[in-house]
């Protein structure tokens, strides 16, 4: 296990390194050069040159990259153009909020989708299965922002049951029940998209497992059907779902961003959109990197979990006896 762990972590580090190069390269590939990006228009040529030198933009690219990475790794994410606020100050508070939203949606999805999907695999084409299938198709096709708007206009504006937007009602920051009320709509929106996928894959994974020879062996042994499903099949069916978690992460982060925009949730995604509008590239780069870190780490955890749960994974270079 140790060797596998080390190998995987090394891999992740390499990918993160490449991502940073990629992102950096992207910014510096802009038409008009990085100066167009990092300097506000309207500066005179002279002032522009001075600012450029200040920001180190006249250095060769690799040096700039190293400077930037060095800063990032030591915690200095740069500052905004307007008002020169350190990026970190604006960014970190939003991360927590995004994690709350994503976490709640993810947990809700798993609790509903996995048991239900598995149940449906045992009663194929039954009413429950058809319903879930309907929800799946809807979830895959539904634009999250439209669903959000509809929920808002109905449950918030019309019925006034739930708050319209934001994370807390003014003055009630930190109040858990207030947070809960504010979470309901955005989490519903975010979950629908995830639910669609997990329902489908939990069901099909289970169906595939139930076709396997070892299930036939279990029945030939005289094992009760209940046990065949829950003991023999279930574990095998859940294992591929772990990989799904990992693959899902980039989409989850993006989905969260859209949801935040709809509900004005003070998270990373909403920040990203704001900053994109005002072209604050240092913030954009920081958030992009952060998002990528999140995905890479998430995948790493998923892979490790997979290795723990599936005995077939070759953890070291051992062979068959």
């Amino acid at each position, binding site marked *: 296990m140790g060797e596998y762990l080390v190998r995987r972590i090394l891999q992740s580090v390499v990918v993160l390194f490449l991502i940073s190069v990629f992102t950096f390269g992207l910014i510096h590939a802009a038409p008009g050069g990085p100066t167009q990006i990092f300097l506000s228009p309207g500066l005179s040529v002279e002032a522009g040159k001075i600012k450029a030198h200040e920001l180190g933009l006249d250095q060769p690219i690799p040096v700039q990259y190293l400077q930037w990475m060095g800063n990032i790794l030591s915690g200095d994410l740069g500052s905004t153009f307007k008002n020169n606020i350190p990026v970190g100050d604006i960014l970190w508070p939003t991360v927590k909020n995004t994690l709350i939203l994503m976490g709640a949606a993810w947990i809700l999805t798993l609790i509903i989708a996995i048991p239900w999907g598995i149940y449906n695999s045992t009663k194929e084409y039954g009413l429950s299965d058809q319903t879930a299938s309907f929800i799946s198709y809807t979830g895959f096709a539904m634009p999250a922002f439209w669903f959000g708007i509809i929920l808002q206009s109905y449950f918030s504006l019309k019925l006034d049951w739930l708050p319209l937007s934001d994370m807390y009602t003014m003055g009630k920051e930190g109040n858990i029940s207030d947070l809960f009320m504010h979470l309901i709509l955005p989490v519903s929106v975010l979950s629908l998209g995830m639910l669609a996928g997990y329902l489908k894959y939990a069901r099909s994974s289970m169906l595939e497992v139930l076709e396997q020879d070892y299930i036939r062996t279990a029945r030939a042994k005289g094992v009760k059907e209940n046990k065949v499903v829950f003991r023999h099949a279930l574990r095998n069916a859940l294992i591929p779902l772990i990989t799904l978690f990992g693959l899902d992460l980039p989409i989850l982060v993006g989905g969260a961003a859209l949801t935040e925009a709809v509900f004005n949730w003070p998270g990373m995604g909403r920040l990203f959109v704001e900053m994109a509008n005002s072209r604050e590239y240092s913030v954009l780069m920081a958030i*992009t990197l952060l998002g990528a870190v999140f995905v890479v780490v998430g995948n790493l955890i998923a892979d490790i979990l997979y290795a723990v749960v599936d005995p077939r994974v070759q953890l070291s270079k051992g062979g068959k006896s």
Partner: protein
Amino acid sequence: MSANLQPTSHPSVPVQTGAAPNAEKPIGPWRQTWNKFKRNPFAMTGLAILLIFVLSAILAPYIAPYDPAKQDLMNSNLKPFTGNHFLGTDELGRDIFSRIVFSGRVSLTVGFSVAAVSVLIGSLIGAISGYFGGWIDIIFMRLIDVMISIPTLFLNILIGAIFGTKFIYIILILSFTSWMGVARLVRGNFLQLREMQYVEAAKAIGVSSWGIIFRHLLRNASFPIIVNATLMVGGAILAESGLSYLGLGIQMPQTSWGQMLSNAQEFMLIDPIQGVYPGLCIFLVVLSVNFIGDGIRDALDPRQKMHLSPRRLEKWRAKFSKSTK
């Protein structure tokens, strides 16, 4: 000692095949696929709906009564069916129906273009990567790893912010962030190809590498690519709508369903119904595309497994034992 009898491909479980026992001419694979597709009600419904949207997109200038960008502040926020305004007007007096129709043009164009371009890029990269292997493969694979690790929305917005959000750029950007799936698919296919004998044989008679690649691609990988491409149309439309909703996609004076939705949200208090139409269009188009894609996938599935629900199976059992007892 061990002696194998004449091998047959007949499985020990008897299975009905699609071709009737008295068929004289074997039906080609494309025809067969279409026949199966036809029998899928969801797929056919999706096809019908999509065709309606495509037709209205093509005929947009003829069916839209107004110029979608024309503002008429005197007549803003009209209810549906007022005057010539089938769905009413928005806050700037623009005819909503016209906007919807022209947005359809934009979104569908984006959807199909992105699917086409991604598949092109992806197939090429995947084929080269899988066939030649070595350093080329490693570089491309790392590139794919990098690109799928960055949340797609962020990447789209970022590139849009750097390079601009003109219409053609939107298509390029979305294609740039969605070719990876196809690439992996094609690459996997080509990894197998390298092992096969007939590549050696072809090379021996002098067929060029490119010839082999092209022909193999067409024959083996085309089916999953088609399914993938179809589903990608929906994905691209959702992505474009999302960007436009955020204001970072299709810009004025061009119109997009996503754009209309962000307008609608601002004026939700005044006229919530405006938000329904554009979203509904996105939903219907993506849903149709998904039905079609799944329909194609099911039609191409060589497995003939009969899907019998446990309940129906019991009914059949009971019916049969009653008739023989």
